């Protein structure tokens, strides 16, 4: 049985990775699972300059989901390469560096800095960030801004380049296409959906940042739909994520067209979620007698329904 998939030039032993920002730099969950079993480790979003992040509360639970407004707190690329990457190099699992900036230049420097490092196997651009230079337009919701930043980063790295799309758009298919045409090797679908919870007693937003990103099972039907929509528009691989809690959820994404999947919020609920997803996918392939996971990807059938 083959579980291995390719994302650009990168080969993963299985299609299950961690979602950025939900797995730190790998250390914390190494106490719970064997990191060698993962398809890839995607680390917390990095920037050239370290970021302090937002005041608290930064997280709040919502029905079958959670909002987070961490504010991209991170130690900066330099400290990551020096203090965190050596630990990750001990494992055979490829490391994908998620990064961001607030200008095209910052994205480019971040990509350059990360590309040189031994043990960084691919880059994932988080484009759900506002462009400081262009009136705080979010890169990921404006096709032009996105094209510009992806093209610039594409020139700056030879590593496989994954563009992580924002779901806060009218057409995910169009944005995926722009990413493809701008040189991305793959797209991740999807980042969190902007949401908000109000403390009605105090009449203030619960999160100090006011809004936050919605993740978890609540958004899964939206994420599966977006993967399926994008799959019809592009030919580069899709990494699917959004509310995956178990193997069955992951299979929905694969069948909809995702080449790989990422497990995010589920790690918080179940520190062994990633490993259980990998095992569950294996069992499914056995049960269904599918020898190669690549035969499952995008295998959704549209059948006309009998009227019951």
């Amino acid at each position: 049985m083959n579980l291995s998939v390719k994302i650009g030039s990168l080969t993963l032993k299985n299609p299950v990775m961690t979602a950025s920002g939900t797995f730190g730099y790998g250390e914390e969950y190494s106490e719970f699972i064997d990191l060698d079993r993962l398809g890839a480790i995607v680390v917390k979003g990095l920037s050239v300059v370290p970021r302090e992040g937002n005041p608290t509360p930064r997280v709040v639970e919502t029905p079958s989901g959670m909002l987070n407004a961490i504010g991209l707190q991170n130690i900066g690329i330099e400290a990551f390469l020096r203090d965190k990457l050596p630990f990750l190099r001990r494992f055979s699992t490829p490391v994908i560096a998620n990064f961001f900036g607030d200008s095209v230049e910052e994205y480019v420097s971040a990509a350059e800095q990360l590309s040189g490092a031994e043990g960084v196997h691919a880059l994932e651009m988080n484009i759900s960030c506002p462009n400081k230079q262009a009136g705080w337009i979010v890169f990921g919701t404006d096709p032009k801004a996105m094209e510009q930043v992806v093209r610039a980063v594409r020139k700056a790295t030879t590593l496989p380049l994954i563009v992580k799309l924002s779901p806060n758009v009218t057409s995910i298919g169009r944005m995926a296409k722009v990413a493809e045409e701008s040189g991305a090797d793959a797209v991740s679908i999807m980042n969190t959906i902007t949401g908000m919870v109000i403390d009605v007693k105090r009449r203030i937003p619960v999160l100090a940042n006011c809004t936050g990103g919605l993740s978890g099972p609540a958004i899964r039907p939206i994420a599966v739909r977006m993967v399926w929509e994008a799959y019809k528009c592009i030919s580069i691989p899709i990494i699917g994520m959004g509310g995956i809690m178990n193997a069955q959820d992951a299979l929905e994404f694969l069948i909809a067209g995702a080449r790989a999947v990422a497990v995010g919020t589920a790690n918080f609920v179940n520190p062994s979620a990633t490993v259980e997803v990998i095992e569950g996918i294996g069992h499914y392939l056995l049960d269904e007698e599918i020898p190669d996971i690549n035969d499952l990807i995008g295998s959704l059938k549209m059948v006309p329904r009998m009227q019951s």
Partner: protein
Amino acid sequence: MPRYCNAVVDEHGFVSRHFKLLRLRPLSEMQEPKAGQFYMLQAGATSDPLLKRPFSLFKREDGTLSFLYRIRGKGTQSLARFRQGDSIRVIGPLGNRYPVPQGDFIAVAGGIGIASLLSLLEGYPGRAHLFHGARSAEELVMGEEVKRVAKEVIIATDDGSAGMRGVVTDLLAVRLGMTTEPLLPIYACGPTPMLRELHRVVADKEVRCHVSLEEHMACGVGACLGCVVKTTSGYRRVCKEGPVFDMKELAW
């Protein structure tokens, strides 16, 4: 040793109107917890509630873990529905610990904060001067247990239904003001407003003061950066570098 496992509800009952005591029997051997550490407990059986909730270890005996908690919102309401024989997934022990007290010490508990402090008191019986604040007498749960292990118990309630009427930090301030000897180290756990008040009370004093903080948590293991607190050296994770912090390090 696994820090994520299944446990069975051994006993679960009300100890007062809004407080329940939950005793769990983990099905695998778990790490030995230290005073001040906490566990993330599964709060429901489906994806609503979704996240586990953090609770201080209240007591450890005969291979069981007990938690004392107040029913507040959705998560604790849901937790309260688990019954004997049900299974609950548990992550822990997590976080740091109260530093080992040298000699006598002062403990300041606000409400359910006693849950976290009791294991410290039990570890060093007869050495704690406990200042215990609560909304009312009814919320002073575990009074007998506390009396057995503390050297002294000073009580304040908001409504005066037990001890002094008022806030416990005022009583503490009076005590500290009267003391001429070097001040005993302080260990505190309670609602953030109480800890802030404590901060004010000890600000100008020569005293070591350790506080156990609460923050909204998603992961409990240091991965999400959801639970930070501002310290003199930047944001620190309450679940990992805490929950116990030296008051001096807090950028309050």
